[in-house]
């Protein structure tokens, strides 16, 4: 009963402290603003993707009209012949798109570090120039976005400090801490109940925003397990910081000392430790200039172009043994044009091999980050959060992997069709479209 009384008293105390109420409302406002920003980014991405899809459909319709009108291609390009698979496949606008997650408004994560649409050509790779992030102000990127995850992970502990630093601190300052012992008994329990009120308040606030966004974006249906995990993660995170602050309040004397220690703990966990790990990781794994990848796309690619048609023929057959069974594969003479049109398959294989090494190097750095989680819990929470909102490194790695699958598909189809000496008409073109998920 006494516990309940302390709990309800804390609620009254909170309401009667304008500084605390204003800070709390300010935090609420910041959350609303961050979520608005998240929605804004999500809508911008959706709009861009929609525009790309519309433009692609228009391009496809144009090609279909050429087939209907018996044209071989655009009038200004007389050398284009869309009945040749090389050109008809070239005239299928192929894009790999990363649709924004329904939970993006709750955590932008690393979304602004990567591109989310990629045009696939015969010469594409997953580290192309168009895989970089959208046009943005780099200084803004350094300061980061006011996104909801940032507010919960970095600012919520500061709010907790403002709400709790004078619990017991004030009593110490005015020297009536003994009075509490007389009136309530165990002072630790008294502090615990007062802390509990703020823990509940903050958990309720965060959950309220998570649920609101989930309802608006229908995430409770589409990404229920992620929503559940976000709620659990944020609650545990609040409890984690509250526990640290509770012990600081119990074992310190005076509100100044408590505030100083709490802020120091926040700085240590949110700024110093992640910064140290970051510095260490950068020393162990300096920025990768990816010279191996550059070599493949420049020197080694040009060496391949210098190879004889015979050598290229055998390299292509090695990559796709099924080419042996095609029309050209059965012919006695090698057609230089067909080989040159499909040489991109050789470069693609070279790219895939070198990219595997790059991904392994990145993975080694990530493993180092994982191993630091024991001393760096904030980065753990941050990356976990980003993984739930599909905005972490691995979400974009999956996206890169999907890009590679489409590149492989396009090049394999190109090789098989060119070697098969296919004559493309409207219906075959439509079959190609289906391969790339066009519903025309």
């Amino acid at each position: 009963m006494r516990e309940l009384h302390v709990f309800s008293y804390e609620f009254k105390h909170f309401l009667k402290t304008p500084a605390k109420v204003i800070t709390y409302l300010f935090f609420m406002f910041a959350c609303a603003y961050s979520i608005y920003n998240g929605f804004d980014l999500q809508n911008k991405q959706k709009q861009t993707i929609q525009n790309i899809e519309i433009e692609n459909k228009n391009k496809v319709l144009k090609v279909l009209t050429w087939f209907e009108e018996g044209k071989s291609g655009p009038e200004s390009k007389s050398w284009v012949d869309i009945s040749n698979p090389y050109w008809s496949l070239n005239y299928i606008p192929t894009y790999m798109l990363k649709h924004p997650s329904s939970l993006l408004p709750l955590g932008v994560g690393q979304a602004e570090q990567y591109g989310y649409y990629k045009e696939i050509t015969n010469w594409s790779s997953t580290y192309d120039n168009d895989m970089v992030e959208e046009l943005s102000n780099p200084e803004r990127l350094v300061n980061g976005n006011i996104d909801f995850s940032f507010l919960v992970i970095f600012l919520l502990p500061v709010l907790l400090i403002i709400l709790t630093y004078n619990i017991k601190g004030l009593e110490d300052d005015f020297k009536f801490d003994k009075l509490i012992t007389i009136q309530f008994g165990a002072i630790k329990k008294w502090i615990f109940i007062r802390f509990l009120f703020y823990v509940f308040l903050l958990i309720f606030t965060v959950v309220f925003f998570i649920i609101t966004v989930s309802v608006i974006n229908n995430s409770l249906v589409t990404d229920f397990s992620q929503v559940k995990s976000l709620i659990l993660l944020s609650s545990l995170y609040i409890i984690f910081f509250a526990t640290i602050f509770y012990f600081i309040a119990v074992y310190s004397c005076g509100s100044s000392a408590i505030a100083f220690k709490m802020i120091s703990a926040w700085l240590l966990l949110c700024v110093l430790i992640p910064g140290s790990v970051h510095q260490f990781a950068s020393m162990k794994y300096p920025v990768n200039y990816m010279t191996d990848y550059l070599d493949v796309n420049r020197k080694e690619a040009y060496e391949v172009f210098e190879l004889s048609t015979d050598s290229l023929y055998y390299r292509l057959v090695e990559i796709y043994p099924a080419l042996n069974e095609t029309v050209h594969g059965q012919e006695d003479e090698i057609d230089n044009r067909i080989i040159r049109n499909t040489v991109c398959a050789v470069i693609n294989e070279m790219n895939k091999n070198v990219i595997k090494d790059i991904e392994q190097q990145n993975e080694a750095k990530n493993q180092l980050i994982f191993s630091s989680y024991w001393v760096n819990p904030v980065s753990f929470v941050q990356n976990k959060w980003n993984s739930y909102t599909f905005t972490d490194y691995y979400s974009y790695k999956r996206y890169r992997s999907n890009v590679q699958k489409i590149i492989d598909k396009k090049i394999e189809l190109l090789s098989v069709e060119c070697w098969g000496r296919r004559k493309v008409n409207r219906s075959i073109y439509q079959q190609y479209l289906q391969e790339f998920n066009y519903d025309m």
Partner: protein
Amino acid sequence: MKNIVINEWKGLFRNRLFLVLVCIFTIALLLTTYLGILQNNTQILAQKEAQEHIREQWDSMDPTNPHRAAHFGSYAFKPTNLLNSLDEGINAVTGNVLRLEGHTQNDVMFSEASQSLLISKFGKLKPSLLFQFIIPLFLIFLSFNSYIAERESGRLKLLLVQGASLKKIVFSKVFSIWIIGLLLLISTTFVQLIFNTYDLSFDAIFRLILFVCSYGCYYLTLITLTVLLSLIFKNATGALSLSIVIWVMWTVFLPKIIGNTVEKISPFPTRVEFQNAMDVDRSKGIDGHNPSGDRKKELEEKTLAKYQVNSVSELPVNFSGILMQADEEYGNDVWDKHFGSLYKQLQIQKRNYQLSGFFNPFASVQSLSMGTAGTDMFHHLDFLKQAENYRRFFIKKLNDEYAFGGSKTGDRSWKADTKFFQSVKDFSYTFPVFLSFLSKYILDILFLFIWSVCLLFWLKYSSEKTIFL
């Protein structure tokens, strides 16, 4: 006043907690500066190796067609400056490699931030992180305690009775703590100087001086503000809370809010919109591989008239090379138009952000910190500009060789020799002298100065008006 300052230091150095904290800060600063220098040197070496590796390939190129060589292209690697070890600025989020080739102007790629999971939202543990986040907090608590302790212990009354004025007391407190902040700053700069003596220029020293001065001004602002609040507020906790709230607002909240707002005021097009707009403008020009249209005819007629011949086959030069160069120059105009306006927009955004220094001195100190370390947007844009200028020189050299090096129109198999390729100078980035950029930081310098001077005046005014006894 001198006696009060000395007395203040004596008091501080008698405090074991203070001594421990100062030792921790000094060691942490020296260590992070040293580690920063080590990491920086590793990066400088890696960048140099990459550039040499690419150049080696270029120098050993077999005789080939110059236009083919233009497609083969080169790379510019963003160099790391000596002072990057102080403040990393935007280097982690911008790319580091720029492909330089014919027909196309590429984006800078492979940013560090895209190569791993997220580690720190506030950047690496560089001296700037300590200067911007840790030391200010330490100074806030020091200055808060310094005055409040005197008041609450009753010593302040004693000092006033003995004849010292409140103004002298508070100013002594401000300066005694400020000097501690300055000592930490100077010791870091000293380490920076010791480990980089081999490559220290006047420019680097000037940058370091400005670096120290900007943080010095910021610390003076923070200390004065804290002392002022503890003077104005009778409630010690209220003063401390407000100081911390202001510090959090300045360092964590406002930079993000303002950065976001500034970008929203003048939003960028999406990359696809930007590229489409460039493609549309480019298509109006000459396509080097598809020479048709009025521009091509105009150029052909002009060239024929210049050489007084009737057809391109009679030309003593290779018209394809001339055409390629004309295409490049048209592309350069398109690039200047689109990227010019993009860079202008970035600079407007930066200026708007700098204006926020009016109510957030942290924005000014952050901007000056990155600026003096050579890691801000202005320096990044300068790198991009120099790289683009080099690309133009590089492609023109190749196109000119193709046009005037001895081949004739239609002679596609013509090859320039290895010696020619070796004679094309490599990209070398000239780090800008800070004085040439100084005008870009006037707002930051001005705001920091105004903040510290205004607060000092306010403190003077408040201390004169406060009746204590």
